[in-house]
């Protein structure tokens, strides 16, 4: 079990705002997109044979009381220790998500090295990065129409289809409803699934 840090801007996120504006233009009439929120996800993976509680205390202090991970002037965060995060990850009320990771490597070695220099943390094996886009959408039937919106705003296929991830550099996973953290961990730790070219 890993510890999780979610960081988002509390000032206006211009990338999310631009994604919203661009996304609205790409959707067919009858579909609405009301909000997009972008969050950075950091997953703190214990060394083999260790548990996250061996470093969570020190890590939580570093998150809350240093500006190593979070700039409190512009960002807000949620730090979820292995025990408190629960079994599943639920999207914000009314939203669903697209989680994306780099296709080749999710580990951030330089961040880990810097962290070890400033905040020694025995037991911490790796820091992995991902990004989540939370979307509030509505289709003609009143539901979120997530499969349709994913096709239009998810993986980039051509000029008219896809926006938030480029599948040649990133792999993505849909977060519809409560998603087991174990699935999120596997998505970040395992090699990215093979690319499938659009038909």
């Amino acid at each position, binding site marked *: 079990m890993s510890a999780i840090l979610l960081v988002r801007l509390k000032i206006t996120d*211009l*990338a999310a705002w*631009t*994604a919203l504006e*661009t996304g609205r*233009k*790409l959707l067919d009439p009858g579909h609405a997109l009301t909000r997009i929120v972008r969050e950075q996800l950091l997953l703190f993976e214990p060394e083999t044979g260790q548990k996250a509680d061996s470093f969570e205390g020190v890590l939580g202090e570093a998150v809350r009381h240093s500006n190593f991970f979070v700039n409190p002037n512009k960002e807000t965060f949620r730090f979820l220790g292995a025990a408190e995060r629960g079994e599943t990850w639920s999207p914000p009320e009314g939203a669903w998500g697209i989680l994306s990771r*780099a*296709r*080749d490597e999710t580990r951030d070695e*330089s961040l880990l090295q810097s962290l070890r220099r400033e905040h020694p943390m025995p037991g911490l094996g790796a820091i992995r990065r991902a990004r989540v886009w939370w979307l509030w959408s509505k289709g003609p039937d009143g539901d979120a129409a997530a499969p349709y919106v994913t096709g239009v705003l998810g993986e*980039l*296929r*051509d*000029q*008219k289809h*896809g*926006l*938030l991830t*480029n*599948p*040649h*550099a*990133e792999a993505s996973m849909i977060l519809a409803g409560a998603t087991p953290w174990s699935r999120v961990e596997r998505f970040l730790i395992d090699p990215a699934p*093979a*690319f499938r*070219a*659009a038909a």
Partner: protein
Amino acid sequence: MARVAVVQIPGVNCEYETTRALEAVGLEARIVRWNEPASVWTEFDAYVLPGGFAFQDRIRAGAIAAKLPAVDRIAAESESGKPVLGICNGAQVLVEAGLVPGFHRGRVEMALAPNKAPRRAGYLCRWVWLRVSPGPGASWYAASIRPGEVIPMPIAHGEGRFLTADPEVRDRIQKDGLALFRYVAPSGRPPEHYPYDPNGAMLEAAGITNQAGNVLAFMPHPERASWLRQVPLELRNAWGERRRAAVGRRHDLEGAGPGRIVFESLAARLLAREAQGARS
């Protein structure tokens, strides 16, 4: 005289230097705003998407600009054989719009991913060494480069790693000779490691063309190497020697730099096309 549109998208920052470099090789260059009406784009013989940070690189470098109607128009013009050169951020736009390599019309087949080098991450600004590989783009953008010649040029990017997740696309780029410019060591040998391989791009590619060769996504900045005065004094090859010899000689410093080769090739091809059009 051949007319070139230098596309000014909000956030680009190299449009004036690029215009000057194009004018220096005898082309008529005009900065054209991204929101000009559709009819304006047909007036030009060639298009250059300059470097910078179109739409502040929001979401991903080039992602928003790639969806502009202007890019749509330029894509349509490129299909009639008109050349399109994307420099750095312009290259990112062309890749995100699916113009390069363009095996399947309109399909995005590559990414320009964040740089990858041992113990280094993020933005990188330095001079690199390039060599031209034979391919369909050579007559458009590298005609005046001698076989085997090693050319120094500056790069300045955080996301310059040409990458495809589709092995078939990678194989075709290699087989068809679309990786026109490749990073090399100063000796001309394969780069093997950083800094000669500055970002970990597949095939050590610095510039990739479409199959016709008229569209080039080029990460280095030739407009920042178009005059000898722009060449660093410490460069260890013939260009560096020329630069050192020109210290204090204003006339010599205003001579051509290594990046001008790209614009000269483009100009020669455009002017030849124009002359052919006048004859027929």
